[in-house]
């Protein structure tokens, strides 16, 4: 379970995220919504250590080292980005391999001194990477450079990469942005599948139907603060949320 407590992000005098706290239990999905500029992506960046923040966060009872992206990832917190951040020069399978949590013999020792061990580890990694590429429908594109994928495929590749390290929670920053209806439905199916296997999901998105179909809980941010939270049916009736999304009158 992910627990975030009092997460605050300041950029100079601007408080982008203001004392945000909530829990995401295993096997559940939390949707983080709010108008543009409300601090949703900044909150994800804070949790994954990409921007400096204050507050505390823990994953499965162990404290997350905020401000340290590598340690956060190794603790079991994976993420995708608002625009897919793949390595275009590398093949799709190499993109997924990068995120494997088994990092044995990936350095100079594996390259120069322990090649048989490196090959053994690599073969296991290749299999996992291919399995995850197949999970998102990209098995046939494994050796293709990531830069040649369509936008929707880039999103799926990033999703495969985020899942390969067997994380405890996956943070998705607007995963359906730029996807057509079919691709969005496929994405939803994959996310429900991994959630049912016990993974916790934290999703930032603007597509209300997409969020409604996936989330057990919704948290609404406005100007960096939590203004509403609860089950989707309750949240959409909240006058503060209605005002934030539709405006007064």
């Amino acid at each position, binding site marked *: 379970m992910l627990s975030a407590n009092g997460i605050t992000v300041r950029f100079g005098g601007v408080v982008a995220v203001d004392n945000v706290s909530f829990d995401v239990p295993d096997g559940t999905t939390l949707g983080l919504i709010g108008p543009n500029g409300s601090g949703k992506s900044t909150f994800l960046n804070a949790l*994954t*250590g*990409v921007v400096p923040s204050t507050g505390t966060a823990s994953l499965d009872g162990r404290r997350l080292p905020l401000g340290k*992206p*590598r340690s*956060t*990832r*190794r603790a079991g917190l994976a*993420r995708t*980005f608002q625009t897919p*951040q793949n*390595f*275009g*020069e*590398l*093949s799709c*399978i*190499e993109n997924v*391999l*990068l*995120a494997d*949590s088994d*990092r044995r*013999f*990936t*350095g*100079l020792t*594996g*390259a*120069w001194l322990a*090649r048989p061990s*490196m090959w053994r580890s*690599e*073969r296991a*990694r*290749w299999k996992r990477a*291919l399995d995850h590429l197949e999970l998102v429908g990209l*098995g*046939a*594109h*494994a*050796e*293709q*450079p990531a830069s*040649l994928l369509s936008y929707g495929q880039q999103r799926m590749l990033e999703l495969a*990469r985020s899942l390969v*390290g067997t994380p405890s929670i996956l943070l998705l920053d607007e995963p359906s942005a730029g996807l057509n209806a079919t691709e969005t439905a496929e994405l939803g199916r994959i996310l429900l599948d991994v959630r049912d296997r016990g993974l916790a999901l934290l999703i930032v998105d603007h597509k209300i139907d997409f969020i409604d179909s996936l989330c057990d809980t919704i948290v609404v941010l406005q100007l960096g603060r939590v203004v509403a939270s609860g089950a989707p049916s309750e949240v959409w009736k909240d006058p503060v949320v209605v005002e934030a999304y539709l405006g007064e009158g």
Partner: protein
Amino acid sequence: MTPEVVSDPVSRVRRPPVYGRHQFLGVAGFIVFASILATVLDSAYNYGLLSSWLTMSILGLGFYLVFGLGGQFAFSQAAFFGLGAYSSAWASRSTSFGWGLLAAIVIGAAVALLFSLLVFRTNQFYFAITTLAFSQIALVVFREFDAFTGSGGEVIGIRKPDAFGYQFNTDVRIVWLLIGAVGVALFLVAMIERSPLRREALAVHAQPTVAATLGMPTGRLRLLMFVLGSSFAAVAGSLQAHRSGFISTEGFSVALAIDIFLILLLGGVSSMWGPIVGAAFVVVAPEKLRFIGNYRGMVYGILLILVIVVFPKGLVGLFETGWNRIRRRQSTDPEILGDSSAPDPSLEVGR
């Protein structure tokens, strides 16, 4: 796309394309080619050119690790070349070439590690400036630190290379030694190319923050590529010192650092063969332009600009583009395939 091809279980990819390439065959091909040159050429002038090409190739390969894979814009390669030369000359005074070479590697790697730790938090432009400053400081040290480098940074009478009692005391013998050294350097780089380290270095190079969110040790990888590449430069320096028997600070100036950049830019930044081809150009082209006389510098400059503008991926990129075109033409030739199951050219990995 051609699902007929990619969904075929027999042709299904089980490993990243980089492992399917024949880098080791390329290394063997290089050794054969260089050996033919060493056999065919017969004048001291040609042996000198060949030796320079081979030495610069090792320097360039080191810079490929630092810049091509590691993405670190460093002007320090010439300084580590000098450090290797002086360390080797110093350590071999009362011992042998082997101890000199070992000293060059150890001292080069240790100084690179210390420097890298010192400027750990700088990157890109700022890192480049620190390496430029390091090069300038190194030149002063080479010139003033007499006990280590000799009076005014000049060392004469450096012993010729030897190994297991065999003396590399003629031009042609030194060429063979250098062919062996470049072969070993290429083999070591090929092993990195055919390992997870290549993709990790490229990922850290391209997007360090994203790489960190994937759990990669970004700082350690940058440091490793810098130390490795600088050690290659130190080895090249050691070989240069023992080949020529004489070193002075003039040979390790910023002008050499710029030549090393040119080697990679001209040859191709994204291929381990780039430095080999680029070094040949940088060594041979100015010599072949001697007949122009006073206009040599100008014509060489124009040639450099033309190559960089026309072949942005370097001369190796030109070969790869040509090779891909030939493959594409063959793969789309209906007489060869007989149907529409030609592989999609876009599936080719152009490295």
